[in-house]
């Protein structure tokens, strides 16, 4: 019997497999950031051991950084301390850091791919659940806790049980105004926020194949929002074209050797999955979430489920969620006033996302009482946007292009949505308080967010494109 892509990569990274023990899996690339690494470095210090393979770990500062005036010291003392500690720890242990001010700095899941560090066939981990993003290249990539960060720093390995395998096929073609964010929000709305827990997902089908690398990253990024350990997509010409020529990508003879290997990275025709789910791209409309987990999503023209449509057991959580959101069961979101628009995060802050928004808003003006934050994923995205004149388009529309960081995705830095306000956001989580205490989040695509920025309310973007 053939093997799945996941199993091919996993099997080639198992260092030790003993009955009764989890596999010791070798990690090719380890990304770290300031929030989930200090206690891990502390652990190494207590044990008196070094980082085992310094060149395989790369660091950046993203969660705590401000997105304006990055040349000034970070105002908030605890945020500043965490970022300073990352600088001190990486220096002490000999790990490369792309810190604030560095031309490579940015959100960890944006910089890995754009620098050519993320490659097909790799195992990649980071103390951040959205590490699944890197799976878009045909890599096994997943988020880990701080104890596991310490394991990887100490041994370049991690102890893991092999997850089950799920294939999600999206066939057919997307309709106008529907983009990759809508695909993943649609899938999660169908299978729920726990629908893939225990599984590693492979995305396949024509609608996935025809996506750019940026769009594939958006899909893989949100695998964790349905509970999956990670999600991956077999590499193809689109993948190879994206990687070629990037800073740390293989060059010359190394490139040829790498390419020959990457071309073996696909699921064999007779390989078996534990679960296969199939969707039709034509059924997907622009999506928006109404609740407080990413599974609570609907097509923008649909109504929020009425109480009678909700399972008895789920009613308490459903009611609590809608109460928090200030929304009525059975009501529509279309036309609902929006206070903030956030376009950014490791889900949707790449150059293609900014181009998509710029194309749409060119010649339009934002609604008067809406605050619009556009936060590029990295210094390189920021520079590229400026080179293409995208910043000028945003300025003319009344948007502000800020500096790179996680920003309003997680209410940890200075960018927070005020209590009670509604924010249409291209990020990945609509949890209570995620964007700031009592902030209310509608997750949507960059196109839908841009449409809301122009009209000031939840809008069916298909009417404007």
């Amino acid at each position, binding site marked *: 019997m053939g093997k799945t892509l996941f199993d091919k990569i996993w099997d080639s990274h198992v*260092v*030790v497999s003993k009955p*009764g*023990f*989890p596999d*010791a899996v*070798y990690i*090719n*690339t380890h990304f770290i950031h300031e*929030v*989930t690494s200090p206690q891990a470095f*502390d*652990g190494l210090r207590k*044990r008196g*051991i070094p980082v*085992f393979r310094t060149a395989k770990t790369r660091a950046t500062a993203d969660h*705590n950084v401000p997105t304006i005036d990055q040349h000034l010291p970070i105002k908030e003392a605890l*945020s500043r*301390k*965490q970022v300073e*500690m990352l600088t001190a720890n990486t220096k002490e242990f000999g790990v490369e850091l792309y810190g604030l001010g560095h031309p490579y700095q940015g959100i960890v899941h944006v910089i890995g791919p754009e620098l050519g560090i993320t*490659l097909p*066939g790799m195992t990649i981990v980071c*103390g*951040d*659940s959205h*590490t699944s993003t890197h799976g878009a290249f045909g890599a096994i990539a997943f*988020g*880990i*806790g*701080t*104890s*596991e960060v310490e*394991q990887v720093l*100490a*041994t*370049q*390995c991690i*102890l893991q*049980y092999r*997850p089950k395998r799920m294939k999600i096929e999206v066939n057919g073609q997307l309709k106008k105004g529907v983009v990759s964010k809508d695909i993943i929000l649609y899938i999660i709305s169908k299978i729920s*926020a*726990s629908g893939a*827990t*225990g599984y590693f997902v492979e995305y396949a089908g024509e609608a996935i194949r025809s996506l750019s690398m940026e769009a594939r990253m958006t899909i893989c990024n949100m695998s*964790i929002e349905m*509970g999956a350990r990670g999600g991956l997509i077999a590499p193809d010409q689109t993948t190879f074209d994206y990687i070629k020529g990037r800073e740390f990508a293989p060059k010359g003879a190394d490139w040829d050797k790498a390419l020959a290997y990457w071309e073996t990275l696909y699921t064999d025709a007779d390989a078996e999955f534990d679960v296969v789910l199939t969707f039709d791209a034509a059924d997907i409309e622009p999506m928006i979430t109404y609740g407080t*987990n990413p*599974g609570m999503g609907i097509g923008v023209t649909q109504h929020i489920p009425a109480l009678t449509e909700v399972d008895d*057991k789920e009613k*308490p*959580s459903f009611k609590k969620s809608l109460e928090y959101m200030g929304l009525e069961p059975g009501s529509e979101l279309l036309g609902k006033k929006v206070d903030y628009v956030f376009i950014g995060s490791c889900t949707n802050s790449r150059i293609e996302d900014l181009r998509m928004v710029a194309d749409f808003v060119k010649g339009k003006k934002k609604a008067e009482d809406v605050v619009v934050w556009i936060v590029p994923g990295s210094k390189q995205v920021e520079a590229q946007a400026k080179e293409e004149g995208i910043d000028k388009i945003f300025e003319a529309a009344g948007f502000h292009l800020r500096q790179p960081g996680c920003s309003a995705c997680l*209410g*940890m830095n200075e960018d927070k949505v005020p*209590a009670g306000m509604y924010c249409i956001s291209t990020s990945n*989580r609509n*949890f*209570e*308080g995620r964007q700031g*205490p009592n902030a209310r989040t509608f997750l949507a695509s960059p196109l839908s967010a841009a449409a809301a920025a122009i009209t000031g309310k939840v809008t069916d973007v298909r009417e404007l494109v």
Partner: protein
Amino acid sequence: MSKTFQHLVSTAVPIAIENIDTDQIIPARFLKATTRDGFGENLFRDWRFDTNNEPKQDFILNNPIYKGEVLVAGKNFGCGSSREHAAWAIGDYGFKVVISSFFADIFKNNALNNFILPITVTDEFLDKIFRAIEADPATQLETDLEKQSLKIVATGEEISFDINPYKKACLINGYDDIDYLLSLRKEIESYEASREFNF
């Protein structure tokens, strides 16, 4: 936080909400500490305290009737972020066992790595526990890791739970993963040498 777990008889705190994510367990703005200590103070921060930092009377952790070293929660507990701070907060607050009908993967690993035992039970048994505690908040639950059993003491109703043998041994004996991985150094080095394509 204890560095082993074997056996516990305790009352429990029930939170019958599904999909409790790690942002609720410990909101992002409290992730700025650089040690593992003190996170219990902010466990369920925004459910426990209002914006003036006054305890919310309707939240169960503020109700003195409910206490104990066991947390019982609705399905898909610990979904969302990989932050181990969620496990640290639960442990620092004093919980040693978390019971649900379903756990998010990363949370489960993080809990085990901190000697907190996540116990997955059936939906029916979870309901039974919720109902027993509702009827009598002094209901005691007995957890026996060696036997892999969880019992509602008053009624004697019992369920066995799964845990992989390696993690079970770690919890009982106080081993951690790094001790084991460090013992594999030779194997790791020979793996590296054997890989033609080690990026």
